[in-house]
């Protein structure tokens, strides 16, 4: 026994552990610096708004993934926990305003979190006894119920118009009154950092580890002394807590909450975001939230049809890369470890760039079809990719068609070579 207790730095296992400590601290520092610096790079007000939305979505998506990715529980009504936390914070904010309560605004999300957790405890007490269809259906049912209640129970949800408030009545926090967007940005960033670190640490606690075990094999977990139900319950409450925090941040940032924050669409969006980013890795939802918010805000400015593209992207992700964007990135780790990732660059350029051009061609065809069908009578002129042309003439169709066909054709022709390069890059040894 004694020899096992000695630490031997030459043992590979312990070297890995020492390495992993520095590895885990690095990204957090980078993220914190990025959060601090971002407003100096993107200074416009709209950029700040987009970033605020992005960080709130990140908190929400990470909280959602505590269930989906780490606990294996698919929830269809998770907007409820964020929404309720938000509504509660909104009421608190109005209470502060009405009664002149001395309350620092930055603490508000904490109360949203507690409220979200409280509600999760009620629902979780009966929904977490199973993980599969039963859990999903209860979450759907509860979600629909609360969303419907929001129109009926006007006192709490404010009916159709929702409830709104004013964040600036809180106690000034070191002189900051949160009048300016940038102040709100740092408040949100602070909570994002705090929540993300806490959620990461949660996944490293005994109950967080057992959540993984219960996800993989609930029965085996039972025979290790853990009740699968309680493990799920704790994950569920923790997720509810962080969703509530996201709700509180939403309340601070937008100063209004409506039925939209509770309904099935919002619940669906967060599922989409999380899955797009990748449920298998802790940082997946972060990437998903950033990518989705960018797609939503930037793409929706460019085209009415953005939802089609996002839907298509989502389906393609489920079908071809179930690991999501994070999975796609992590796929390259073995090649990097083997030092052969360089061999992938050229094949990628040869296949993916023509492929992307081809996809753009297809998009052009879709846009033109849409314009052709739905534009006002006599409006033949449309602008696409910085060119204005007549959508009722043959030429643009021909060009878009050729671009699409050639791009996709080249991609298809070079795909086998890419596959070969991929296999080569992931095989140890051999000529490199």
């Amino acid at each position, binding site marked *: 026994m004694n020899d096992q207790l000695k630490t031997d730095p030459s043992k590979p296992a312990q070297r890995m552990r020492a390495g992993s400590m520095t590895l885990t601290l690095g990204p957090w520092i980078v993220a914190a610096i990025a959060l601090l610096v971002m407003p100096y790079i993107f200074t416009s007000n709209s950029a700040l708004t987009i970033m605020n939305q992005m960080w709130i979505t990140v908190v929400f998506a990470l909280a959602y993934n505590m269930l989906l990715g780490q606990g294996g529980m698919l929830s269809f009504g998770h907007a409820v926990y964020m929404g309720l936390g938000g509504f509660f914070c909104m009421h608190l904010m109005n209470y502060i305003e009405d009664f002149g309560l001395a309350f620092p605004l930055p603490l508000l999300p904490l109360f949203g979190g507690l409220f979200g957790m409280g509600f999760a405890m009620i629902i979780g007490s009966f929904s977490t006894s199973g993980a599969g269809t039963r859990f999903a259906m209860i979450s759907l049912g509860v979600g629909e119920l609360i969303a419907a209640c929001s129109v009926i129970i006007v006192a709490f949800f404010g009916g159709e118009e929702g409830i709104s408030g004013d964040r600036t009545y809180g106690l000034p926090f070191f002189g900051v009154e949160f009048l300016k967007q940038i102040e709100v940005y740092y408040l949100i960033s602070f909570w994002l950092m705090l929540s993300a670190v806490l959620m990461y640490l949660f996944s490293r606690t005994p109950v967080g580890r057992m959540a*993984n075990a219960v996800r993989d094999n609930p029965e085996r977990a039972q025979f290790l*002394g853990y009740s699968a139900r309680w493990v799920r319950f*704790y994950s569920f409450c923790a997720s509810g807590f962080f969703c509530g925090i996201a709700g509180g941040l939403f309340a601070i940032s937008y100063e209004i909450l409506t039925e939209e924050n509770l309904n099935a669409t919002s619940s669906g969006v967060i599922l989409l975001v999380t899955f797009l980013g990748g449920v298998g890795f802790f940082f997946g939802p972060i990437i998903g939230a950033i990518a989705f918010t960018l797609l939503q805000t930037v793409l929706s400015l460019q085209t009415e049809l953005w939802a089609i593209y996002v839907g298509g992207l989502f389906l393609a992700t489920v079908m071809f890369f179930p690991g999501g964007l994070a999975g796609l990135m992590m796929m390259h780790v073995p090649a990097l470890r083997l030092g052969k990732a360089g061999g992938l660059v050229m094949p990628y350029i040869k296949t993916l760039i023509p492929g992307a051009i081809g996809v753009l061609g297809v998009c052009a065809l879709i846009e033109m079809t849409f314009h052709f069908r739905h534009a006002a009578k006599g409006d033949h002129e449309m602008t696409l990719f910085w060119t204005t042309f007549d959508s009722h003439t043959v030429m643009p169709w021909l060009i878009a068609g050729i671009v699409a066909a050639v791009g996709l054709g080249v991609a298809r022709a070079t795909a086998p070579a890419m596959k070969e390069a991929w296999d080569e890059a992931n095989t140890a040894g051999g000529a490199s």
Partner: protein
Amino acid sequence: MSTAALELTGLKKSFGKAEIIRGIDLSIGKAERHAIIGPNGAGKSTLFNLITARFPPSAGTVKLHGEDLAGLEPYQINRKGLSRSFQITNIFPKMTVFENVRCALLWSQGYKYSFWNLVNRSRALTEGAEAILEQINLLERRDLPAGTLSYAEQRALEIGITIAGGADVIMLDEPTAGMSHSETDYITDLIMKVTEGKTLIMVEHDMGVVFGLADRISVLVYGEIIATGKPEDVRADPKVQEAYLGAALEAEH
């Protein structure tokens, strides 16, 4: 007489009209290695599932160290010091080998459902898990996903998970099923090593393993124990001979 490690009295189980376990009385002493054998369909796995509360019994009691287990959930029974493996490999395939073992250690080291401890910080957990991995010779596979191990390695891992919690009654359901000769020998040695000083109850088909490991053997046929005793005695028992030959003859028809 000291209390038996595991005592079954009048244990019965029916599924609908079919009576699978038809009244079993069995007492297994502390630190005894007990094997349960019998022809296919005799109810061996059902018996295991009854003891570990995977199914509720129709009648009878199961006592662990003299304590009645009626109405307890599997996880509660596990906490009382009874651990089992499964006939079909039952591990956490997406988690690493190390994580598999570490999860098995959590409860016994008193972590319960805590969310204020970090598992990486605990030297006792890490070293405990590594000690188990060393015992089952999987230290080199430490960071691989458990699902990628070979079949024999997965079985070894399952035994590791089963013993990791420090339970003093270990139940193994066909630990060598589907293995080659060399793999069987390897697993047999492993079982011998890791169950030292513990009560072992195993279902097994491979008679070599049974006679090599067991202190006592029970023969289960059609839901009843027809013989219990030392390996030599059981081998010589005419009822056992008949049951096995009979079943063999029936299978031919």
